[in-house]
């Protein structure tokens, strides 16, 4: 075979959906004992995001921390007008510990935006989101989008204790009705949360349900959603290597038209139909 010459016209070029980009840290402050907020100065091209999408972060390497793979993080906020990209993260292991040591002015290589975000169908005028812990990060942009689209939003925010409740102001600012439930106050148990949602539904205040992360929330919203025929979406997590769909490591099982399928969280997700998602 003869040498195939490179031909700029033939062949698709990068379709420009996701970018590997260098950003600069604007701030990286503790929000409370467990969570930190990272604000990046980011190029415009990576700020065309959808709520529920994520970035894959190349955490810094130091003498103390040597993460190798990237770490997936939901977009907590994207602000093209300010050129800002926000993340809210919990410090757990090597990668997030390394992230926590970033200082203002440091650079951070990010890859994104990645994945498929939440949908808000035209006829979903009343939406309800249920968030706990760092799940708030994932759901915050959805609140922004709801306001932009003029939808009515109820946000149920759950936490261990009132001290670690985050982002309530953010949701309030977005015009949401915020309901807080906590473990210490004994209001965050599934029954109570379910009954709050049932009441809302009975009042005709819920066209769609949204959540992310945990198995317990998934079960809860699957049950309530099925009971009342209310659609919903959930953002899922899974270990990731590539983040763009190549390695097939991030699959989860889904119930789809009577069969069990494997879908990639990074590519077909991270947001999935709540009834198709399977507990783990």
């Amino acid at each position, binding site marked *: *075979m003869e040498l*195939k010459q490179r031909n700029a016209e033939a062949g698709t070029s990068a379709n420009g959906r996701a970018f590997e980009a260098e950003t600069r840290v604007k701030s990286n402050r503790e929000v409370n004992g467990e969570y930190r907020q990272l604000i990046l100065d980011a190029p415009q091209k990576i700020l065309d995001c959808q709520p529920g999408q994520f970035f894959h972060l190349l955490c810094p390497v130091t003498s103390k921390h040597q993460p*190798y793979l990237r770490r997936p993080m939901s977009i907590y906020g994207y602000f093209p007008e300010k050129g800002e990209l926000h993340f809210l993260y919990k410090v757990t292991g090597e990668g997030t510990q390394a992230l926590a040591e970033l200082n203002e002015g440091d650079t951070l290589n990010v890859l994104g935006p990645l994945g498929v975000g939440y949908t808000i169908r035209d006829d979903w005028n009343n939406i309800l989101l249920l968030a706990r812990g760092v799940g708030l990060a994932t759901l915050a942009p959805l609140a922004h989008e709801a306001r932009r689209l003029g939808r009515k939003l109820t946000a149920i925010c759950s936490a261990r204790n009132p001290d670690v409740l985050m982002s309530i102001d953010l949701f309030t600012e977005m015009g949401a009705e915020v309901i807080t439930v906590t473990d210490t106050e004994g209001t965050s148990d599934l029954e109570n949360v379910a009954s709050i949602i049932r009441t809302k539904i009975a009042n005709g205040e819920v066209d769609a349900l949204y959540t992310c992360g945990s198995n317990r929330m998934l079960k809860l919203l699957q049950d309530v959603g099925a009971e009342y025929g209310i659609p919903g979406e959930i953002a899922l997590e899974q*270990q*990731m290597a590539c983040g763009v769909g*190549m*390695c097939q*490591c*991030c699959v989860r099982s889904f119930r789809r038209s009577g069969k069990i399928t494997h879908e990639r969280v990074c590519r077909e997700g991270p947001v999935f139909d709540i009834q198709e998602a399977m507990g783990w």
Partner: protein
Amino acid sequence: MVNLTTKIGALTLRNPIMPASGTFSEDLADVIDLSVLGAHVTKTVTREKRGGNPTPRVCEVRGSMLNSIGIPSKGIDHFIQNVIPFYKAYDVPLIVSISAHNIDDFARICEEISVPGVDVIEVNISCPNIEEDGKAFAMRPSSTHKVMTKLRAVSDLPLWAKLTPNTGETTEVAQAAQDAGADALVVSNTLLSMAIDIHSRKPKLGNLMGGLSGPSLKPIALRMAYQCAKAVDIPVIGCGGISTVEDVVEYLIAGATAVQVGTATFINPTTMVTLISNLERFLESQNISNVRELIGTVRDNDAADSVVFMEAAP
């Protein structure tokens, strides 16, 4: 202008940089221009549909990673109908990686995948041969010879044999593949490894063990590429831990005719594009006009064969 073209048998590549099987897919077009690559190499495909291994399928180890993806496969029909047409849009050779757990299945997929649009078949013989004791074909010269001979008979396409590092017989396996008609060797696949979560005491991979890839693998795969290039006359394609242009050059000097880049693309999806331009710049800086001038130029004369042989194990 620097000439980056390299030849693997009759096939000329515009540059020696291509992805490694299983670390590349159509999806990468979201981030880079796939038309700049030396070749496109697809994830190993099997005839039948397969689910792949339990999760977690990857974990991190110091400076590298383990994976036990398995070979989830939508089957050969889906591949022929969907994947091959995607790559036809590019003027880049398409290398299709195949596998099977016994020789007959291997021969069938090899024959069936020999369709227009496919330029080379990469034979992933680093997978278990269940007809014998379950050790990978590429762990032994005899099973390597047997499977490659069979495949040679059923396809006219160039066959690249992909070797495994999980063997003490690298050169013997390389020679067996050449004798059986392989057109090139890809050296190498991942190395069997393990990691355990000390808190849960569970293996970090759902499948208990998995393959090591990334920088930790480089000195091992480089040694194998060198050994193979010395042992055979067919081209050797280096693979294992490549992430910088220095790595590429090291493999070329060791005797590789081209290289495959795997895990580095997960860390920086633009790696291959960067490597191509950095290779050009490196050659310019060294006043080398043709990349082929590097291949196999390792200055190993000083080390007498006998010394190597006697003392290699410290």
